[in-house]
């Protein structure tokens, strides 16, 4: 069966109410965001939504015929699960169209307490095959899974053949090299866990310093990059760092580059994907505006049978280079 003409849902990030409106106005079908605390995986200073801001934003989305999703996708700390429960209740109360969860205990809570609230499985749950996904669908009634960035397009197609629920895949933005929700690298260097505290490479532990004409970035005191004056600077994430291992010196894990799978939209549609996700709740509204507009045109072009053009957004990306990541098998 050909997917030609299929309408893909564009799921866009918002770190602030202003970015939320910018995403909707630029053509987002759906916007995802989080509360301003450790209950979501982009818990950065100055970012995210109070309950009141979320209520206003959800109403704005609905007025414009768009959807709003709320990510509550960290793993509740032992002894503090009430905060996460409250956030699920808050999201339900303001009329969010779905919550994006990762923790089993929280999924169990949400499915029992809010049987009518739609549940999406966060990429942080790292459900990478049809059987893992089916477990979450069966146990908690999950309706959509955000696929980990470890699968090829062929593997995504195989997953979609074997599951009953929708899939959402990342199309653009920051690229985790490790299986998400299963990575303690940042926690190892800083003591702040992305899984529990909601921030990879927390700014409180990042230091930039100019040393001998090089920009040196350190995380928790560990040097992770040295870049020359004219080179593109990367995020201070460990998995994109420059290290030495045996004889090898360089990016042991991944080059500082971002995902841009725009050119693969037709293949992803044919692989049975329902929605395309843009990463970047930590980015500005100008980023949101530009990326959403660009990808809305791409999915509209695809739906109308026009050729899809990609690659116009390189300047916005980390390292200013892009990759199709795990979607192509050679990446491994």
């Amino acid at each position, binding site marked *: 069966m050909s997917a030609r003409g299929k309408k893909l849902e564009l799921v866009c990030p918002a770190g602030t*109410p202003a970015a939320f409106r910018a995403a909707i106005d630029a053509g987002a079908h759906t916007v995802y965001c989080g509360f301003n605390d450790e209950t979501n995986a982009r818990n950065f200073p100055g970012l995210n939504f109070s309950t009141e801001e979320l209520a206003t934003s959800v109403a704005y989305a609905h007025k414009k015929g768009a959807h709003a999703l709320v990510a509550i996708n960290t793993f509740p700390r032992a002894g503090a699960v009430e905060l996460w429960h409250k956030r699920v209740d808050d999201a339900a109360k303001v009329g969010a169209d779905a919550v994006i969860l990762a923790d089993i205990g929280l999924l169990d809570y949400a499915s029992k307490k809010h049987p009518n609230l739609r549940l999406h499985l966060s990429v942080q749950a790292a459900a990478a095959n049809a059987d893992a996904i089916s477990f979450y669908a069966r146990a908690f009634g999950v309706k959509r899974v955000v696929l980990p960035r470890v699968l090829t397009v062929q593997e995504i197609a195989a997953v979609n053949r074997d599951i009953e629920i929708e899939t959402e895949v990342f199309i653009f933005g920051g690229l985790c090299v490790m299986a998400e929700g299963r990575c303690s690298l940042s926690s190892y260097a800083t003591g702040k866990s992305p899984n529990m505290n909601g921030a990879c490479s*927390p*700014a409180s532990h990042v230091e*930039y310093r100019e040393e001998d004409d090089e920009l040196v970035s350190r995380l928790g005191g560990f040097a992770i990059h040295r870049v020359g004056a004219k080179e*593109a600077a990367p995020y201070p994430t460990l998995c994109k760092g420059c290290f030495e291992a045996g004889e090898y010196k360089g990016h042991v894990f991944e080059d500082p580059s971002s995902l841009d799978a725009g050119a693969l939209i037709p293949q992803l549609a044919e692989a049975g994907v329902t929605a395309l996700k843009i990463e970047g709740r*930590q980015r*500005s509204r100008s980023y949101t505006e530009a990326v959403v507009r660009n990808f809305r045109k791409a999915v509209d072009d695809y739906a109308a049978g026009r050729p899809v053009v990609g690659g116009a957004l390189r*300047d*916005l990306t980390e390292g200013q280079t892009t990759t199709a990541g795990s979607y192509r098998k050679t990446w491994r």
Partner: protein
Amino acid sequence: MWNAKDIPLFPAVGAAMLRFAPLTPLSMAGAHLVKTLIRRHPSLFSRLGEQADKVFLIDPTDLPFAFRLQPHLEAPTLEAVRREDAGLWDARIGGPLAALLGLVHGVYDGDALFFSRDLVIEGDTEAVLALRNAIDNEEIDLASEIAALFGPFEHVAATPARKVSSAVGHFFGVALTRENENHA
């Protein structure tokens, strides 16, 4: 789509002339601007949280002076200083004036400017991030902020302010009034 490589620099001749300019009037205008800004954008503070007590050095690298910003809730200040007199600060944000203005106005993306090395960050990274995110949410329109400086005469000042910032924006290649933004 804007391109980071196109960020214009303040003309060297102008910068050389400014080297001898008295900073007091600039500091007075700055103090007034930041007070007005904070009155008009109270949510800036809820976003800044405890970072509001930090000292920021806003450093337009193509100008002969920088700005010390203390967004403190009760006594906010924005003071023009020579670099050598900048004193202690918690965080420094450096880059061409156009990049800094564009950032405030929301036409540039902070991370992209950082990747392209147009923006330099030093010191307290958490404070920088909080300030950047808080400002980005305010949808600051520099023209209306300048107009607001005129208090009760705001409506009288609005049109000239818009014209001035439009001219300034044109000069820098950055749209500084919302009407100029191109939604094509």
